[in-house]
């Protein structure tokens, strides 16, 4: 026995021992690689999220604009009362001056829709800012309406496929049977039509059409799906009629004819694709006008400051985040003012004064539980207590901030306690030793030393609150605020995440990229706040 054990403990070169050692190293490597793998997966997912956001969102950081020369006619704009003039007409005239060829009212009306309906207000605000411009011809950049903005950015196509899958399939089945031919540059369908003598004598279009359709439908007998009569050109009956009239001497009952097919299928047959105008645009004409503006160099796509300085709008090209910024900021201010002092006081009491008994354990457990409560519950609480019971108004940042404070409190208490705990007892003892009272120990020594940790926890709690949506929706902080003139704790407002929520739910195409852009801005804010937390920790942290 002893022989064997001494052999094992000493013979490191034996194959058994070697395989054991390599297995242990393998397991080390495995653990390490799993960790690396986990980080790669996490970073990869984050990367996918950010790239997809950046990919859809980047177009929202520019706005397509047209450069217009506007003559501020003193007869139309009163220098002393510039707000009263009809800027709608000024913009209209300046825009239509580029297209003197448009005469009909309908065409003009269609053309003017290239411009954003908010263009007039941009001109108005400019003139009201600088009334001395009246009498001059000024050059202004005015935004385009959403469909044209999206067209210029390449988000929506100009032309789309005209035919659905089953329509193409029905045509392909004819083609495969060799029934489609091309003559003189247009496509024809060979059809065998049974014509009775009565029709031959008097080929009226009505009955002929019925016969023709019946013969056409027979080509698809045995197949599922509705017969696609639209393959036949509208002129087919006319051609058939002419053919029968020409062939008066036609004897027999089966007539082999080549009938024209409708232009869209003709295009599909000859070029392989059938396209039509994107139905979002009213006509080719208006797109031609737009192209003319582009070739004349009047269209530009500058950086969209509107995204940051405008408040919300129904029109995506005008919508911005300013209202959401101010709402979020006010709500966060309220949240900070309440949760910071209350959180610190609670933590100081629990850490420094509270006796260790069942009751304080109970409180501690509850605070930890509170940190895990879903935020929507706080929203419901806010709705019931602040709005329902206390009668506070809906949609206001004060209530939003109160609800967010409830949510942030546990985070701050927990992190403050951890920070207080990390202050070494020697500091407290030294202070007590030179005769400081309890409050002097806490306020003069422990708290300032714990401050970096407390601030870090607070900033992270606030960052969480900044991204919170559900409680704000419940208390109505998703109101539509088209102007940022009234900003206050009791004025209805919206917040960044709820703004993203409402934009994401809007049908207009421009809001798709606007939503992604807003998410990027929000993420930017969160990153900045977290960086600030890291900076504070690095800068003020005391090492013992």
């Amino acid at each position: 026995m002893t022989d064997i054990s001494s052999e094992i403990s000493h013979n490191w070169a034996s194959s058994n021992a070697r395989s054991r050692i390599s297995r242990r190293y393998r397991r080390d490597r495995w653990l390490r690689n799993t960790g690396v793998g986990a980080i790669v997966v996490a970073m990869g997912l984050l990367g996918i999220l950010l790239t997809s956001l950046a990919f859809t969102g980047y177009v929202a950081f520019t706005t397509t604009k047209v450069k217009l020369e506007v003559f501020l006619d003193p007869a139309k704009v009163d220098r002393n009362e510039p707000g009263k003039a009809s800027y709608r007409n000024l913009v209209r005239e300046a825009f239509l001056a580029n297209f003197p060829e448009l005469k009909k009212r309908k065409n003009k009306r269609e053309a003017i829709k290239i411009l954003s309906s908010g263009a007039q207000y941009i001109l108005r605000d400019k003139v009201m800012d600088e009334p001395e411009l009246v009498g001059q011809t000024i050059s202004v950049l005015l935004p385009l309406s959403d469909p044209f903005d999206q067209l210029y950015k390449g988000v929506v196509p100009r032309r789309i496929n005209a035919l659905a899958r089953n329509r193409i399939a029905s045509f392909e089945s004819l083609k495969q049977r060799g029934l489609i031919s091309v003559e003189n540059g247009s496509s024809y369908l060979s059809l065998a039509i049974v014509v009775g003598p009565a029709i031959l004598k008097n080929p009226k279009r009505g009955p002929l059409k019925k016969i023709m359709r019946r013969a056409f439908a027979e080509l698809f007998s045995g197949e599922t799906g509705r017969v696609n009569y639209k393959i036949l050109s509208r002129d087919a009956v006319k051609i058939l009629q002419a053919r029968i009239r020409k062939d008066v001497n036609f004897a027999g009952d089966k007539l082999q004819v080549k009938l024209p097919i409708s232009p869209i299928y003709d295009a599909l047959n000859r070029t392989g694709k059938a396209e039509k105008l994107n139905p979002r645009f009213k006509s080719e004409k208006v797109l031609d006008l737009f192209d003319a503006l582009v070739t004349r160099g009047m269209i530009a796509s500058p950086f969209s400051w509107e995204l940051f300085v405008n408040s919300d709008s129904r029109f995506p090209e005008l919508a911005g985040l300013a209202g959401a910024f101010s709402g979020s900021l006010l709500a966060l201010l309220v949240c900070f003012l309440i949760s910071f002092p209350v959180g610190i006081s609670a933590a100081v009491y629990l850490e420094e004064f509270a006796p260790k008994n069942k009751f304080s354990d109970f409180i501690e457990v509850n605070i930890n539980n509170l940190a895990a409560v879903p935020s929507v519950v706080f929203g419901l609480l806010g709705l019931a207590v602040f709005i329902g019971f206390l009668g506070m108004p809906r949609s206001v940042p004060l209530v939003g901030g109160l609800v967010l404070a409830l949510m942030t409190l546990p985070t701050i208490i927990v992190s403050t306690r951890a920070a207080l705990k990390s202050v070494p007892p020697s500091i407290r003892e030294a202070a007590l030793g030179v005769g400081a009272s309890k409050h002097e120990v806490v306020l003069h020594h422990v708290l300032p030393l714990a401050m970096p940790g407390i601030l870090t926890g607070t900033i992270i709690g606030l960052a969480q609150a900044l991204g919170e949506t559900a409680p704000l929706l419940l208390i109505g902080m998703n109101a539509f605020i088209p102007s940022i003139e009234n900003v206050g704790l009791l004025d209805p407002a919206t917040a960044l995440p709820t703004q993203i929520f409402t934009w994401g739910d809007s049908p207009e195409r421009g809001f798709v990229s606007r939503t992604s852009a807003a998410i990027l801005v929000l993420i930017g804010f969160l990153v900045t706040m977290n960086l600030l937390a890291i900076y504070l920790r690095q800068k003020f942290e005391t090492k013992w």
Partner: protein
Amino acid sequence: MLFKKILKFAGTALTIAVVANAAEAREIKIVGSSTVYPYTQAVAEEFARSGGAAPTVESTGTGGGMKIFCQGIGEQYPDITGASRAMKASEKALCDKNGVSDISEVLIGYDGLSIANSREGDAMDLTKVQIYQALAAKVPVDGKLVDNPYETWSDIDADLPDVAIIAYGPPPTSGTRDAFVELVFHEVCKNGELEFWKNAKSTLDKKAFKKMYSADCTSMRQDGPFIEAGENDNLIVQRLNADPDAVGIFGYSFLYENLDSLQPVAISGVEPDLDTIGDGSYGIARPLYFYIKNAHRKVIVGMQEFIAQYVSDDAMGPEGYLSERGLVVLPEAELKASQSAAIDAKMM
């Protein structure tokens, strides 16, 4: 200490903000249907731009809006609520109970519910009966109501494409879902378009028949082909683009904005567009309303002007800016009636 200074500063700021706010009169408050919301938003924006105080518009859903609206008269209650259906008798009773009896009803226009699929998929033309057969939880087969057996569209009618039925639609909390059930299912059952329902209609008395169809002709199927896709219609649009065989049910404005990638399913040969929804030839359209609390008109600054802006030809008219946002505008006579009801505070 810095901490004390921050507190002091913030406390002052808070006091100033609260005091400054209390002195101002309240702006117009609007709640209600999410379908009416974008139109109200557009009017509110226009109103704010032309110098009025910006109204607060919040989307609460039709039912939710009615509940808040009917709570009473006074500054804390909203002035206007939007609705994607007419006010129910029970809601009117609630209003009356709380002293909100002088209400004006204003018809804004129409909204079409569209059924659409990807342009990569098959073009379809369905009847309401076929849609009912494809999506209802229980359908009549051989004279009996059974759990929906249809799996592909061609099971219902050989003329339809041979693809599995997959439909994305709104959840039960949505007004769009209510409207869909009412305008498609109930209409099929109520009008006795299928033999089974025809028999039921002729044998049962009116009350019992109503009870029967509201019980058995209201649920969407739960066995897979109908998928609830949440309140966000843009999500449905994305899923349709990913799956050419699926159809989606949503408001017309979402179809209108996405016509480059989606094609409408025709209902009995009629495709939805502004004309067919407006003249009623497209079968699945509903009226949109807003309700005005007349007692607030004189008290809330700018309310009368806001209402006038809402019903003006510039907004609601045939070339108005609401039609650009996808509202199906009213025919001439109805428009005039709406305008006078709104401006003259006609009591409903």
